């Protein structure tokens, strides 16, 4: 039997003309690219706004109406920053004679008043007979409407 040799024809690549192909790195996705990508920002965080000093921030719940004039009502949540210095006119969480209370500070020459914001309540004059701890300064009130 005669075996015929297969006929092969060779093609030469054309290398005379140099071709430039751009290299594209990375994935290609077929959809329309989001035009918002370039404008990505963090979503608003109330926590970030309200808590300026994480390590010194504590929370408390209010019962009672003695500060309603300052917008602090029964059931509200107080954000308390202990790193803020107590000063005249600031609203502070105080511990006086065995109880927590929230009042506006009124600093006079030789005494401090804890002033309620409700005409039904009288200011508390703090004398050396009282044990007062200014526990922290109220920086925000969170209330449910």
């Amino acid at each position, binding site marked *: 039997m005669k075996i015929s040799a297969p006929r092969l024809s060779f093609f030469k690549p054309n290398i005379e003309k140099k071709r430039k192909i751009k290299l594209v790195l990375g994935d290609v996705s077929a959809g329309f690219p989001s035009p918002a990508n370039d404008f990505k920002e963090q979503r608003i965080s109330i926590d970030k706004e309200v808590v300026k000093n994480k390590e010194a921030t504590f*929370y408390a719940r209010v019962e009672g109406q003695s500060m309603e004039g300052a917008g602090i009502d029964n059931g509200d949540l107080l954000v308390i920053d202990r790193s803020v210095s107590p000063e005249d006119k600031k609203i502070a969480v105080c511990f006086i004679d065995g109880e927590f209370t929230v009042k506006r500070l009124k600093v006079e020459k030789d005494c401090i008043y804890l002033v309620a914001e409700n005409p039904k309540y009288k200011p508390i004059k703090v004398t050396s007979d009282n044990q007062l701890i200014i526990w922290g300064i109220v920086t925000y009130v969170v209330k449910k409407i």
Partner: protein
Amino acid sequence: MFALVDCNNFYASCERVFQPQLEKHPIVILSNNDGCIIARSNEAKRLGIPMGAPAFKYKRTFKKYNIKVFSSNYPLYGDMSNRVMKILSTYSPNFEIYSIDEAFIKFNGFKYFNIREECLDMIKKIRKWTGIPVSIGLAPTKGLAKIANKIAKKYSFQTNGVYSIDNEEKRIKALKWTAIENVWGIGRKYTERLKKNGVFTAYDFIKVSDFWIKKNMSVVELRLKKDLEGFSYIKLNEAITSKKYITTTRSFKKIIFSLNDLEERVSSYTSHCAEKLREQKSCCSSLLVFISSDPHKEKRIYYRNSFVITLPYATDSNIILNKFALKALNGIYRKNICYKKAGITLMDLRASKERQLTLFNNDITRHDNLMIVIDKINMRFGNAIKLATQDPNRLWKMRQENLSKRYTTELNEIITIRNKT
């Protein structure tokens, strides 16, 4: 220069932040399950209440002196600790959290700072921001900083909470002042031996020859000696003695008789320990199980026994550890005993990556991925996956009769202000 910052009576101080009326009032804190006393305020110490004492024995004393008793509130202590540590970390980049209430700070390149002033500022800031009082010991080495801290605390009135061992005279005086059992890193066992050999203070200890220490103790104690001599041998973030074992021991609320019930408890304790083991990326190669009846019930038979099993290979798998723990338990269980307590200790710990593989057993790393997944699930869903020998419905209910609120981690447990005046 090293600083050791230590919170004063940390657990009691945490409770006081939210109950300021307890300032200057004696306080004790009980262990998990309200078993024994694990922390005391200075006032309670002065009343002679010892550390580690079983709480029920002191019930009358508590009442007599109106001592305020707390169950341990770890969510609160943990959060307060984080706050303190976060503030401390702002003072130097070289910083090591040593325990829940202690941290070392290394002051390098602070020669233009007055370190004592920095420390006083630190104390003031931590007290104001968190309400926690701290004391600071300053010294050229960690070992000496520990001692300086003790002095700062003990004589807080004179030191304002900061004491610095910064010359030879102070160093010698401090070492002579420190009893050997209070030296950092010297355990009970070595204390006994040292005392027998006439070593009663830290000063006596540094006079012992290197040779004797090496022969009778170990190289760890030798390095400690150098540290106390003022040469900084113990570096930052270097544990003086690595955690050699992990243990969980609990008293039961109710007495247990049956092997089945004991097996359930031991399985749960084993899983708990194994989780801690994996958390620190270690394996163990032996374990101890112990059970005991109530030693305070005199009419009943007192039985206590323990069993050590050496594992065929080091592991951190719940499944394997549990298998051997139950074997150990079966070896010591006796009928007709009123069991009150059980515990497990994982021993011979080593880093997982240094674990020795064996020639004929390919199973060693078999559970690795499984454990990772179990830990992740349990972290997210709270002990959702248990071993079959554990009671699926049983929660880790602890006796916590005097638990304070979780003021900083639970919104419905925050401070209430009664604004009635």
